[in-house]
């Protein structure tokens, strides 16, 4: 299955481009889905170590607010993205140095707590953040060009797709590397790592920073796509949504998060249109079905189908 990943990734990308072309109003939805997929990829790394973060939306929020603050002065996407990503990564390092001492419920809840601190700061410091109103994001340029609306949408879609590929490839290599495999070892036998001379905390920290970086990139894309940032980006329900998507997509491979995010956003948009207030119910049922009947998530279902077709 791992061997088929590159091919499936290309097929998936082609499908996304096709949909974005055929249904222009979905271009926006898919860009957001790709961005969320990036953040969820970070959740997946931590899941490999058996750790669940219920606060990772804070790094997306940091990425988004960096874009919102910096865009008026320096509105170039190709600068804003690395800037937002770098600052989110730096925060991930600072928080991670502390948080990687903890495991399981403590790890989950500390992430949640810190993200809620950030949320209240974004909400309370009205003078700087405009509180719950949020900040409108100034239009950005792409390599110096200021395209009109439709081209700008395509540009954001392309950036999201490229970043999904780039980070997806790096994450895939990382997971197969000694570092990534040691990360999975934290889940099953952390003490053994220590008795092999491997600092488990630093292994987890590397994954944590990587996950913050990807969430930061996701936030930057979301800010430039939606052109509006609010504290809700850091709220715990947003973090929960990322974990939800991770489980929906499946933690078996790096395509799971993107599969999950695309499915999530499409269900959400269509369910919201069809039954207004009931879309959360639809999502809840979808998650329930996945947990009960496909614990490997959508990616696991796909992998099983794929094996059956080949056999």
């Amino acid at each position, binding site marked *: 299955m791992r061997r088929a990943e590159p091919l499936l990734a290309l097929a998936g990308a082609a499908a996304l481009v096709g949909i974005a072309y055929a249904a222009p109003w979905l271009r926006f939805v898919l860009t957001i889905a790709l961005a969320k997929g990036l953040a969820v990829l970070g959740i997946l790394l931590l899941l490999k170590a058996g750790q669940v973060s219920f606060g990772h939306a804070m790094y997306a929020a940091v990425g988004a607010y960096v874009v919102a603050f910096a865009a008026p002065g320096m509105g170039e996407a190709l600068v804003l993205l690395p800037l937002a990503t770098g600052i989110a990564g730096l925060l991930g390092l600072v928080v991670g140095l502390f948080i990687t001492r903890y495991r399981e419920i403590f790890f989950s809840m500390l992430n949640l707590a810190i993200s809620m601190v950030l949320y209240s700061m974004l909400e309370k410091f009205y003078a700087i953040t405009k509180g719950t109103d949020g900040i409108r994001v100034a239009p950005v340029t792409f390599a110096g060009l200021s395209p009109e609306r439709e081209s700008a949408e395509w540009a954001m879609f392309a950036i999201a797709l490229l970043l999904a590929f780039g980070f997806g490839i790096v994450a895939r290599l*990382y997971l197969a*590397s*000694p570092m990534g*495999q*040691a990360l999975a*070892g934290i889940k*099953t036998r952390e003490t053994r790592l220590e008795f092999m*001379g*491997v600092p488990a905390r630093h292994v987890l920290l590397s994954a944590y920073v990587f996950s913050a970086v990807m969430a930061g990139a996701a936030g930057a894309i979301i800010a430039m796509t939606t052109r509006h940032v609010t504290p809700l980006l850091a709220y715990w329900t947003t973090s929960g949504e990322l974990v939800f998507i991770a489980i929906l997509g499946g933690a078996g491979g790096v395509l799971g998060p993107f599969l999950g995010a695309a499915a999530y956003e499409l269900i959400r948009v269509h369910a919201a249109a069809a039954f207004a207030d009931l879309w959360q119910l639809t999502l809840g049922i979808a998650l329930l079905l996945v947990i009960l009947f496909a614990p490997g998530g959508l990616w696991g279902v796909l992998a099983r189908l794929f094996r059956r077709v080949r056999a």
Partner: protein
Amino acid sequence: MSASDDRSAEGREGLNRPPPDQGVMLEARGLRLAFGGVRAADGIDLSVMRGEFLAIIGPNGAGKTTFINMTTGYLRPQAGSIHHEGERITGLSPRAIVRRGIARSFQLPQLFTEHTVLENAALAIAARLGIWSPLAPLLRREIREEARELLARFGLSAIEESRADTLNEGARKLADIAMAVALKPRLLLMDEPTSGVAASEKMAVVETLARVLRDAAVTAVFVEHDMDVVARFADRVAVWSQGRIVALGPPATVLSDPEVQREVIGVSGAIHA
């Protein structure tokens, strides 16, 4: 029968030589550690000589594992000191101690249960080589080959693709030791390496292990309940009882001591019989 006697005679000459007089590798002085009222270490003094195979025997609960735990940094003694190659290592972390060339295997195997046997071995090899290469695969050729070779020496080739949580106890035990050996330590502490290994395979396994360790000039300390294994492979035997060392010397002397026989071997013999 005669074939195995021949092997055993050869073993005695080749492996069971007198303690090499090459200086002290590890020195424990006055180690004390109590858990509540239980004195798991009650004044342990022991010098491990460079190059020797030292067996630790004694009834369950005597404090054998506790000694290994203190030596490898898992437990901190409440009093006393441990020196390795002349430097104090008391209270260092397991990681710092491993980096000094002291590895251990576990009474209860500590494997990465969701990884295959090959990946377990590969992780240990990678740990030795340095794991901080995020883009090169764990199972790259040089690591895979070394892991295969290592597992072959432990007779684990047939199950190298099996997940560690599917193995029987003997195989888990061997994989656990293989991982410690993969670190290429100078001193290896093994906690009951042969428990769980089928009686029919035990001697062959220990023989292989002894050869691997001799070839690499590894000093070994091992907790053992099988007196045949002790008699055949240990240069010296330390007898543990209630947190103390009650006898220490060559196997021939110690194992024939009536007191040791009554107190320790009686119990252990029953276990391995």
